[in-house]
């Protein structure tokens, strides 16, 4: 068995690849559903119904899509430059912290001014957090996978300290949570009687903006060049370190905005369960999208469907909602295989 590169890859193959991969992943996961003693068709029907079966279900799925777009973009930008930012989770909390600091009464501006300020502050906080491991990488060659990953735990402990200590809301009846964001700082809802908020529009705008940045600008060119071949990029005169640091600011900023978005769009106050690992899921989202910012919109929607649907499926059937993580993991593997197969064909001999 050999792999031979394909001469031409048609658009159809490019689109069909990921779709078939997801179908294949669901077929593989159906084995697990059978094993748990449920009907496969029923399970998947419930899954899709739970995610997309009603106005409320769709709104919940889109709410989850919103935050995943941000963390997915964060990973997509960084990975394009081969900056392995595994610290999206920490940057997300960092962003939420910055928004909490400014948005709980310190600034009493109008919504038009306050909301952008909170996003900006969150982006800065997330970006600056990623700067530290990035400088260690560029100047001392410290592996950023380790440092960004471990920083997540440090930031979680800091948040832990804050919500149990100095930021603890005295009005929260003893719950470990910070004071609520003031009304002007909250994102308006998009659909009445649902949790869907205007953050979705912000996320979509940033996905398009990131796509434009990566494709049409000098910075995007530099990021892609450094990621593709840092030696050759440096040789041609691209400022490699400056580009990596800039990438870190953008990536960390996007992850920080994910935190702000959850905070001022959904929860309203900082708690320790603001994110059940959205930062990590963002990595999967980015990989599923092939690091394409526009693809992130679709892959985050897919992941949100699987997670939300699996929750409601597991309530009705004996299938554990861990199946969501299995499906996304298998989908990721299947998509990686399909990416290989769109570039190469297998020759049996």
């Amino acid at each position: 068995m050999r792999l031979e590169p394909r001469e031409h890859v048609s658009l159809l193959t490019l689109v069909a690849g990921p779709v078939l991969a997801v179908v294949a992943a669901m077929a593989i996961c159906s084995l697990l559903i059978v094993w748990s003693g449920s009907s496969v068709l029923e399970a998947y029907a419930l899954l899709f119904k739970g995610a997309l079966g009603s106005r409320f279900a769709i709104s919940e799925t889109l709410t989850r899509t919103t935050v995943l777009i941000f963390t997915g973009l964060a990973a997509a930008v960084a990975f394009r430059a081969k900056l392995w930012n595994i610290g999206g989770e920490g940057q997300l909390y960092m962003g939420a912290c910055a928004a909490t600091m400014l948005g709980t009464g310190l600034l009493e501006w109008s919504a038009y001014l306050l909301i952008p300020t909170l996003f900006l502050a969150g982006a800065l906080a997330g970006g600056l957090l990623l700067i530290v491991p990035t400088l260690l990488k560029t100047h001392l060659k410290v592996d950023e996978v380790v440092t960004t990953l471990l920083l997540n735990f440090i930031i979680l402990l800091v948040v832990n300290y804050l919500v149990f200590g100095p930021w603890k809301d005295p009005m929260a009846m003893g719950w470990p949570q910070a004071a609520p964001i003031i009304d002007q700082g909250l994102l308006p809802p998009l659909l009445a009687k649902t949790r869907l908020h205007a953050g979705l529009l912000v996320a979509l705008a940033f996905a398009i903006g990131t796509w434009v940045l990566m494709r049409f600008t000098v910075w995007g060119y530099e990021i892609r060049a450094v990621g593709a071949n840092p030696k050759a990029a440096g040789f041609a005169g691209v400022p490699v370190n400056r580009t990596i640091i800039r990438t870190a600011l953008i990536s960390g900023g996007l992850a920080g905005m994910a935190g702000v978005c959850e905070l001022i769009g959904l929860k309203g106050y900082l708690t320790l369960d603001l994110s059940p690992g959205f930062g990590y899921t963002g990595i999967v989202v980015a990989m599923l999208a092939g690091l394409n910012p526009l693809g992130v919109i679709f892959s985050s929607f897919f992941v949100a469907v699987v997670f939300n649907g699996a929750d409601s499926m597991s309530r009705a059937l004996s299938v554990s909602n861990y199946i969501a993580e299995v499906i996304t993991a298998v989908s990721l593997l299947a998509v990686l295989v399909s990416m290989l197969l769109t570039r190469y064909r297998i020759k049996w001999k």
Partner: protein
Amino acid sequence: MLHLKDNAVSQKTVLSLNNISKYFGPLLANDAINLSLAEGEVLALLGENGAGKTTLMNILFGHYVADAGTVTAFDEELPPGKPRAAIDAGVGMVHQHFTLAENLTVLENITLGTEPLWGVRQYQSRALAKLNQLSTEFGLEVNPRALVRDLSVGEMQRVEILKALYRDARILIMDEPTAVLTPPEVDSLFATLRQLIKSGLAVIFISHKLGEVMAISDRVAVLRSGKVVLEAETQATSREALAEAMVGRKIPEPKRVPQDAGEALLSLDQVTVLGAHHKRLLDRASLTLHAGEIVGIAGVSGNGQAQLADLLSGLQTLAEGHMTLRDHGELKPNPAHMVKQGIGRIVEDRNGLGLIGDMTITENLASENYKSREFSRLGFLRFNALQRYARELIEAFDVRCPGISAQVRKLSGGNMQKLVLARVLSKEPMVILAHQPTWGLDVGATAYVHEQLLAARQRGAGILLISEDLDELLELSDRIQVIYHGQLSESLDPDNISLQELGLLMSGQQRSDSQAA
């Protein structure tokens, strides 16, 4: 047995390739190839990159399976796809890139994979005896106890040959064996080959250096686009005829017309570069490059050429000395600075350093000036300008590609180098570094590169040509300086020095007479 071609050499046929065809996707790499090899002859296999030489040899050696055709060695058909069977049948291969374990001794390398599970010590003494006998018989002297990493390139090649002979090879395939050797080493390799064929071995000698093919081979076969386009007795053909057969058209070899050098453009003054453990990789090297001249740097690989190239690329900091550009003063060790100062840099490693394989042709052509006002405005790239520029350049430099949005990785080596030349030369730089500019290129592409360099020289550019191809150096250079252990010799006149003399200087021996130019 059926032979489609009549063999001119009267001796016994030891190897025949019958109607070999091989497809890679839609590409026909080998098209019904018939070749035979007789005992005691050297068959030269000539062809450009991508002509199908390597594919054919990989089929012969069992690395690939042919889509059609058979390989017969000593009247027995080899089972396809089994390298072991080829070795057992007496086929030995010496690869261009050696396949030696550097941390083992010569003897260990040679016996690797042949030793029995038990009784290794005893086996080794027998192996040593056999090895000694082989090396005296064929004049392949090498210390069996030496570590391979301490050997010179020529010695490593001897080990490779011995490795094949130790496995009782009767047919030796040598893939570009002279690519890494100095002229004296080439002479000694040829002496060895003559010894080998005298004792009845048959050799397939793969090369694209016509001079060597004429010197060593009995018969020559030329491959082009997967077909044998010429098969002849070496004596009955000529260099010109072979070159034409390889390329499919006449190749006018560009000639250097004498011209006076102009003012000094770039000078290196007592430059020292330190490596690990304060090893002097460049040792007080001095050099002046004038307008309108090509200065050739000859030397065996690893004597400081890489550091010299890196200095001009802006990738290397110097420990002592000065590197100055006319009117601009000291040059800073920074690639962007070099680009800004207008130094054209053609580097040896075009895949890893010169180009970004995963990016498009347009993006690569602009990689040194994407920030200029011509190509970007307010942080946005000007796609129309970039694409127009790319189209003009691939037209002007005749880059064969599916389009300007094609990934560079998919181009052939020759077209990649044309891309590098396009990027560098279109800016009409006054100082040009050309490090192994024709490395791995075929005859046509090589002639093109030479033509372009000579054209740049004619318009007044100063070119520093670092090459391990002595023919190239002698042909193009106005002056040659030999580099040895980081030291640069005085200037030599390429018209008044022989290959042998140059070879001696490259191996560190001083010239006895004083006929330096």
